Structure formats: structure tokens, C-alpha cells
């Protein structure tokens, strides 16, 4: 019996660690596999640049250091293995810290394991949203660590030290310090006795108010709202908002929760099993919520973006055709990848195109600012690609993709000194130094630009004649680009893709006579398909400028017409039956989208 009792007294600690380890491993598996897109997305949102001017803006606001630390850690996401390990570690640490807090507050009880896991689990769920950054996890972790220090002893000196260090804590963590204030007051009111509880709780309130007032009026040049909220989580998602509020209140009320749950002190084998079950139920519920909230389209878009960023165009085409997405940005990346591999009008309907012309150019707004440059770069309107990338830099700061785009566009346009400046900045990063050194070769020897497969190609298709760029109707630039440089077949195909997606067959076929001048020896597949639609409607072949429609397309069209007629006879308007055989044709798009 004595031995059994000893095992039970030890068991509570084992299961806590077991659950933390299970949590860590589960988190790692998720972020290394299905959730790996989050790492790439976040790594691309910021660039940690080792320059004094980069740090400066973070040092001028409370919470800036926390944000800076988050950015420092995020740069390691460039490696998915390291990123998953780091992220899982920071998600698990709150449980570890609370474990030590619990030891100061109350001994283990049947709820303590679940209670200590809840912050980590909440943060994990929040982290499954791709806009939840690691600085948010760090913020809550800092609150818990500071509370661990504050609650480490009831000794007066610890409380005074906590109060003295509070302004510094506010400077480091910003508005997270306010969460700490709430947590500390609850703790003082519950765990301290006599007049001390009122003295210390009033002191915390007074100190918090004075710190905020001094910050607003004398120290920082920031609006009050920012002093009260930065850098707390703000993600435009209802689940995330709910979890943020829940977690914040949960942490503030944690001492009270421990106290209440501490009343259930009895511990026997049955209750212990119940405690284990609670832990597993928490994990099961988390898994269920994760599955429920997981949006595969987002993952696909980001994975596709990664391939585009790495300029793996063929892989991007294959990826999208294997995992099509009902998403404008995914379709946009697909069309760019096809353009970069010169197969836009031969292949664009092999992938889903239900966004129509919207997937060719992204609108000028905050949501699309970071991706809009790619298309202009692909079709040779380098000035416009530069403008988008530059505006992105102004709004969002340094990012790998905007610096890379700015380097490339400046190299192509011959602005070597500006390219060099961006290269110098990129060289001040940990993981993009090599890329910067690659580009630096072009600065030292500009003749290499023409020889480079990507830069040389773009330099060859930039407009020779000048015109003013149409910003609101970017498609209007396409004929001007072709006119300004007849070698720019990419612009021509983009124009044709626009016409195809607009279902403007007549204008599409009217452009075919220009193709021979542009060096075409055969008509791309989807344009051929448009020709046959025209023929079917007008009963006459248009002027093809000496080119012909292939036998394979004609034969495929005959089969399509037969299948379509059969479908109409059955009065079935859905194209589901035809999709397996004809889903990759322009005809199918023309009739069913």
C-alpha cells in the first residue's frame, strides 16, 4: 500500500510531462507537415535586417523589443525543420512555466494538468492561423515568466522588485504588461493576506496608470490606443479573436481557477485516470477544432507561392493542376507560372480558371499588394513591377520577395546603384546573404545581366517605346507592350488569355494574323479552340495569317460537339459529365463557367 501511495504521489508529475511532450510532438508534426505553409508565409512577411536603422523603430515603442524578438525567431522558419521545432518549443513553454507556477500556488489536483495545458493549446489553435505570429506566443510567455518570478515567494522583496521592474517589463512587452497587471492583482487578492493584499494591488494599479501616463505624455510619441494595445494579437478572424479574449481572461484568472480546482484534493486511481482522460479529451477536442478550421485552399495558395518565389515554375504548374483551388491568388500564380514557361495559351485551362480575368491581374489593394508585382515582371512591364514591389516595401517593410523584386527590376532597368543598395540590405540578413551575393555579381559585371536566363529574358522584352501605364485597367497595357516591343510574346499571350477568359472570341481570332510576325509557327492549343468556336458560330474560318488549326484540335472539337449535343438533348446544363474528358478545353470554360 505504501508503495502504491508513493507511485500515486509521483504520477501527477509524470503525466504533466507526458502531456507536454505529446503536445510538443503533435505540434511539431503539424507544423512540419500540413501546417508548414504557415512557416513559409510568416517567414516571407518580414526580413530581419542586421542594421541599426532597422532596430531603431522597434526601440521607440513599448513592446517593440518583443516584436523584434519575434522577427528574429521567425527568420529561422526558412528551414521547416528548425521552424517547426522552434515554434513547437515556444508553444509548449507556457505549459512548462505554468507547471512551475502551479508548484508555487497549489499542489496537483485532477484539473491541474488540463488547466496548465489550456494556454499552450489555445496558442496552438491561434497559431494555426497564418497571421498569428510568434511574437504573440512570446508575449503570453513573458507574462507567465514574469508572474512566475512575482509569485516565486511571498517575500516582500520579491513584490517590491516586481513593482520596480514593471516599467521595464512594460517597455519590453508593451500591452502584455497590462495582462500581467490583471493577473498579478488577482493573485495578490487571493493569495496574500491582511492589509498587504490591498496595498500591493493598489500599488500595481497605480504603477500601471503612472507608467501609461508617463509613456503617453513624456516618453513615447505614440497614440494612446497603441500604448494600450500594441503588440497584442490582432488577427481578422472570429475564432482567433475569441481565442485571444479567452486566453487573456484565462491567464488573468488563472490563480482563481487554480484555487477553485484546488478544492478537489482527493486523488485516487480512478480520479487519476479521469485526469488523464481530461488531458486526452483536451487534445482530441483540439484536433477536432484544428481539422474543422483547417482551410486547404489557404495551404495550397501559400505552397504555390513558395514555388513561385523559388521560381520553380514547372513544379508550380504541376502543383496547381494536382491541387486546384477556388482562389484568385492561386489561379493568378498558375497563370504566371504558365507565362514564365511560355505555355499560357497552350495549357491555362488544364487548371481551374473560374476566377475569369480576375486571376490575370490582382487588384490594387492592401490584400493583394504583396503579390501584384509578379505579373508585370512576367510580361516585361518592369517599371510597374518595380512600383508594386516598392509600394509593398513602403507599406510592409523589408520582405524577401519585395527586395528580390526590387533588385531584379533595378538590374534590368540599368539602375545598378539602386540594385546595389538593395543587395547591400539583403546581405545584412542571415539567410539571404548568398542570394544577395549571387545578384552582386551583376553589379560588378553588368554584361552578365543579359546572359542570365531570367534577367536576360526580361531585358529582351521590356518596352522600347514609351507610354503611360494604365493602372486601373492593366489589361489595356498589353497591346501597348506588344506594340512597344514585338518580341514580347508573353504580353501577347497574356492579352489573348484575357480575351479568352472574357469569352471575347471575336477579338481573340482577330489577333491571330499578328502571330506570324511575333514568330509563332503554330497556334497555341486554346486559341485554336477559340478559332473553332468562331467557326462553329460564323460558319467561316477567320483569317489565321497563314497558320492552321491542327488536326488533333479539330478532331477533339468534333467529339466535344457530339458530347455537348447529347448533353443538351438530355436538357442537362451541368458540365460534370463532360469535365473528365473536356475539362481542360477552352470550350468547356466557354460553356460552363
Amino acid at each position, binding site marked *: 500500500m505504501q508503495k502504491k501511495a508513493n507511485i500515486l504521489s509521483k504520477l501527477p508529475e509524470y503525466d504533466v510531462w507526458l502531456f507536454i511532450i505529446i503536445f510538443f510532438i503533435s505540434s511539431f508534426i503539424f507544423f512540419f507537415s500540413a501546417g508548414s505553409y504557415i512557416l513559409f508565409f510568416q517567414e516571407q512577411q518580414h526580413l530581419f535586417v542586421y542594421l541599426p*536603422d532597422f532596430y531603431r523603430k522597434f526601440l521607440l515603442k513599448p513592446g517593440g523589443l518583443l516584436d523584434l524578438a519575434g522577427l528574429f525567431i521567425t527568420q529561422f522558419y526558412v528551414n521547416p525543420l528548425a521552424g517547426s521545432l522552434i515554434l513547437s518549443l515556444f508553444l509548449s513553454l507556457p505549459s512548462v512555466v505554468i507547471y512551475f507556477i502551479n508548484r508555487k500556488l497549489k499542489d496537483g489536483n485532477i484539473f491541474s494538468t488540463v488547466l496548465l495545458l489550456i494556454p499552450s493549446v489555445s496558442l496552438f489553435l491561434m497559431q494555426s492561423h497564418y497571421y498569428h505570429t510568434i511574437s504573440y506566443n512570446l508575449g503570453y510567455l513573458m507574462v507567465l515568466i514574469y508572474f512566475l518570478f512575482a509569485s516565486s515567494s511571498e517575500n516582500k522583496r520579491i513584490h517590491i522588485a516586481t513593482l520596480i521592474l514593471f516599467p521595464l517589463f512594460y517597455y519590453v512587452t508593451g500591452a502584455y504588461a497590462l495582462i500581467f497587471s490583471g493577473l498579478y492583482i488577482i493573485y495578490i487578492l487571493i493569495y496574500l493576506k491582511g492589509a498587504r493584499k490591498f496595498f500591493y494591488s493598489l500599488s500595481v494599479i497605480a504603477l500601471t496608470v503612472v507608467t501609461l501616463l508617463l509613456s503617453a505624455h513624456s516618453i513615447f510619441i505614440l497614440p494612446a490606443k497603441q500604448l494600450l494595445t500594441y503588440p497584442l494579437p490582432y488577427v481578422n478572424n472570429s475564432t482567433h479573436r475569441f481565442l485571444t479574449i479567452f486566453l487573456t481572461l484565462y491567464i488573468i484568472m488563472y490563480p482563481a481557477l487554480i484555487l477553485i480546482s484546488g478544492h478537489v484534493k482527493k486523488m485516487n486511481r480512478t480520479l487519476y485516470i479521469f485526469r488523464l482522460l481530461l488531458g486526452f479529451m483536451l487534445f482530441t477536442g483540439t484536433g477536432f477544432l484544428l481539422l474543422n478550421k483547417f482551410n486547404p485552399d489557404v495551404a495550397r495558395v501559400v505552397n504555390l507561392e513558395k514555388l513561385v518565389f523559388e521560381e520553380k515554375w514547372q513544379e508550380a504548374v504541376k502543383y496547381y493542376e494536382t491541387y486546384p483551388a477556388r482562389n484568385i491568388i492561386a489561379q493568378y500564380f498558375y497563370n504566371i507560372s504558365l507565362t514564365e514557361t511560355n505555355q499560357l495559351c497552350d495549357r491555362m485551362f488544364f487548371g481551374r480558371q473560374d476566377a475569369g480575368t480576375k486571376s490575370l491581374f490582382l487588384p490594387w489593394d492592401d490584400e493583394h499588394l504583396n503579390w501584384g508585382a509578379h505579373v508585370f515582371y512576367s510580361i516585361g512591364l518592369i517599371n510597374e513591377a518595380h512600383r508594386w514591389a516598392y509600394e509593398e516595401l513602403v507599406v510592409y517593410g523589408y520582405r524577401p520577395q519585395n527586395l528580390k523584386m526590387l533588385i531584379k527590376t533595378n538590374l534590368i532597368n540599368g539602375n545598378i546603384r539602386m540594385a546595389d543598395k538593395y543587395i547591400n540590405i539583403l546581405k545584412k540578413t542571415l539567410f539571404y546573404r548568398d542570394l544577395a551575393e549571387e545578384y552582386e555579381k551583376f553589379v560588378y559585371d553588368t554584361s552578365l545581366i543579359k546572359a542570365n536566363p531570367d534577367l536576360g529574358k526580361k531585358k529582351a522584352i521590356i518596352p522600347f517605346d514609351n507610354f*503611360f501605364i494604365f493602372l486601373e485597367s492593366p489589361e489595356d497595357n498589353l497591346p501597348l507592350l506588344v506594340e512597344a516591343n514585338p518580341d514580347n510574346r508573353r504580353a501577347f499571350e497574356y492579352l489573348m488569355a484575357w480575351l479568352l477568359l472574357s469569352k471575347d472570341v471575336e477579338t481573340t481570332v482577330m489577333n491571330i494574323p499578328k502571330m506570324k510576325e511575333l514568330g509563332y509557327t503554330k497556334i497555341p492549343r486554346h486559341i485554336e479552340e477559340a478559332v473553332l468556336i468562331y467557326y462553329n458560330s460564323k460558319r467561316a474560318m477567320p483569317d489565321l495569317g497563314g497558320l492552321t488549326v491542327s488536326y488533333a484540335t479539330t478532331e477533339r472539337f468534333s467529339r466535344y460537339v457530339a458530347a455537348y449535343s447529347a448533353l443538351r438533348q438530355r436538357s442537362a446544363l451541368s458540365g460534370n459529365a463532360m469535365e473528365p474528358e473536356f475539362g481542360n478545353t477552352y470550350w468547356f470554360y466557354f460553356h460552363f463557367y
Partner: protein
Amino acid sequence: MNFTIKEQGNHFIVVAESGKGDYEIRVKSRNGQVRFPMKRWKRMLRKSTGDKIFIKIISQEKEKNIEYEPFHMFVATEPVDPYLAYRLIYPGYYCWSTLRIVQRCVEDFSEKSIIENQVLDMNCINCHSFCNNRSDRFMVHVRGSKGGTYIVYDGKIERKDLKTDPMPGSATYPAWHPSGRYIAFSSNQVRQTFYAHYSKSIEVFDLVSDIIIYDMGKNSIAMVHDAEDTTKYLETFPCWSNDGRYLYFCRTPQNIEEPWRDPEKMKLLKYSLVRISFNPETGSHGRVEMVYDAASEGKSVSYPRVSPDGNFLVFTLADFGTFLNWHREADLYMIDLQSGKLKKLDINSEETESWHEWSSNGRWLIFSSKRLDGRSTRPFISYFDSGGNTGKPFVLPQKNPEKYFYMLESFNLPQPVNAKLKVGPRDFMASSKNESVKALAANKADSLPEWDKKRTAIKRNPGEKPIHE
């Protein structure tokens, strides 16, 4: 006067020696960055006033020492104003993030914000102007929810709404009358359009623009029209003569249909320099007279600035256009107002020169140049003697001499100021909470001409956003 040595080397010794040879500073550098100790450098300047400072650079290698040919600099007897106020801005297009107008002490490296948009709802801050370089008379436009023209007069801030019905746009480019009573503005509807060709990126132009004069005493705005001239003009960038008896500005006949549709048409926009007489006592003005007919020479004038002694007028000249900061060919020219002679200043470079201002004593010219990287404007300072000759320009020194290698922000409109400004961002934040005081039309008969109305209504595309408004 910190600087960077670009030559190869692992260990440099830099020796600065006063002209008389009675003072020396020796600095060592391993990375090529040369930073002189502040106190010692100031002492060097005191000892070398009106004389030269010689700089000797020695590169120490294992095998041998390389001693480069010494160079020298002159230390003028007349000081430049101790502060420089400029807006730090990414030279972008539509978007902005944080914007600050700061004052930099040129006697050391300290920099302090005058106004920041972080405390003004992230509004756009632009076009600051000082009256006679005075730190207690200053104005700045803010566009957005906290919008208005914030005027600091003898240290107090007032938020004004300087838009009256007859004006084609809001008050835009300012020029403060030497008396402090009036501020002349051009009222512009500014637009931008983007080039496809790699040689140019952007053209900033006016749909409409007129000159107005704001009377601080009466809180009223008068339109400046030459009643006897029936030609329609675009008029912009006003500037007062030193005695306040003339108002200079740039203008071009508005006879080009929709220049924003065709780069060739845009090239026809050529502004000349004109002036009108002005009576500060009554606020009345005379007829327009031509000062420099740049258009007839196939050129375009922008941003005239008269020297404090009234003898010289410096302006920016380019092939066409009005906002010449985006014109690579833009250079600084000077008219001797006594003789009428035109001269290209020898402080120009292959890149854009613009946004020039005079120091209080007229012995220094502060101007913006893109010569370092072709895109970002940097403040350059050049000595200007009484005969109209310029000294070799130097870039505003920085504590970290490599700052410009990495810095992407431009120094917009660097203006010398005679003392430290006492107002700061919190004062502007407090003032932004007050209702703006609306200015009145000085002449109720003034109305916006029909052609201005038509042009102000033009939207070249549905989502077009104006700038400076």
C-alpha cells in the same frame, strides 16, 4: 565630417591637420569608417575657421604602408544655420507608412521629430515651410482625418482650413512672405502618371493650379489673377523676393489637351518664370511680367528661391514638367537679379538636383541631390559667395558614414532653420484635436473659372487618387 574609405585595406590611419599645423586629430579605422571625435572635430573647426583642414590617409598593410595624396577642405567664416528640417519619406508613389518631419542639428548628429504622423492617424504630412528660416514661424500641411494647415506663429500652433470655393485645389506649395503676414501658395490638383520605358519612372503634374495669397491677419485668401490676361495658365511654386515686393512663380499656358495620355504631349509642358509686384501694406498686386522665358528655350522652370540679399534667384531647370524631383536632367540654375544673367551652377551632377533653400545669411545653399544612388534625395550643402560662386558641395554628414549606403528614405525639402524648434509631435497632436479655422475668400466675387471646374472634375480612371490633397 565622418566618411568612409572605399579603398581596399585592413587598417587605416587618418590624420586631420589644421591649416596652420597647430592642431591634429589622428583616427584609426579597421573597416574604412572614419569617425572623428565630436569635441576634437569642433576644436579643429574653431582653429581652422577661414582656413583649410588637410586630411591625410594612410593604409597600413603587412608589407607596406600606402599613403594617399592628402585632400583638404575650407572652413568658411560664415556659419550655416544650426538646424536642418526635412521630411523623411520613402520616395514612393501612392502609399506611405510612417512620416516624420525632423530637425537635425548640423553641429552634431542629433535628430528630433517636429511632427510625426503616428500621432495624427497616420495622415500624410507634407510641404513644410519656414518664414525667414525662423524656428518659431513654421507651417505644414496634413492631409486626412486630422487634415489642415498647421501654422506655428511665434511658437503657437493653429489648425487652419485653407480651402475656399474659388480655389481649384487645396493650398499646396507654400512661400512665406518675409513680413510673416502673408503666405503665398499655389493651389494645385496634383496627379501622377507612370512611364513604361525604363528611362523614366513617374511624372507628377498639375491638372489645375493657381496662385493664392493667404493673409494671416484677416484669415482670408485672395486669388492672384492678372485681370487683363485672358490666357489660361497653370501657375505654381510661388516665391517672394527678399523685400516682399515681388512674388515669383512658374507658369505655363494650359493649351495641351490631356497630356497624361501621351508622353510626347507631356513633354510640351514647359514652365517659365514670371513675377508680379506686390504691395504688402494693401495686399494688392500688379500685372504679371516675364522673368525668364524658359519655354522659348525648350526648358521648364520650377521652384524659384530668392537669396536673402535679393541679388540672386536659384531655380530648377529641366526639359519639361513641373515636379522636377523625378527628372534626372533637372539641374540648378541661377539668375543674377541685378544683371539678369543666367548661369548653370557648378554644383550639379548627372542626377537630379532640386529643392534648394538659402541659409539665413545667404552664404550657403542647401539642396537635394540624387547623385548618390539615382533615386533617394540627399541634402547637400554648398558655400555661396557674394559674387554668386559656389563651393564644392558635400552631403549632410552622418554619425555613421555608411548610413546612406543602406538608407532608402529620402530627405524631402531640407530647410535651414536658425534655432531649435520648440514645438514637437505632442503639440501637433493636441492641436489636431481642435476644429480647424476656416479661411474666407478675400473677394466674394472670386469664383473657380469654368475651365478649372472641368479639369478638376477629370478622373482619368475610377480609382485615381490625388496627391498633396
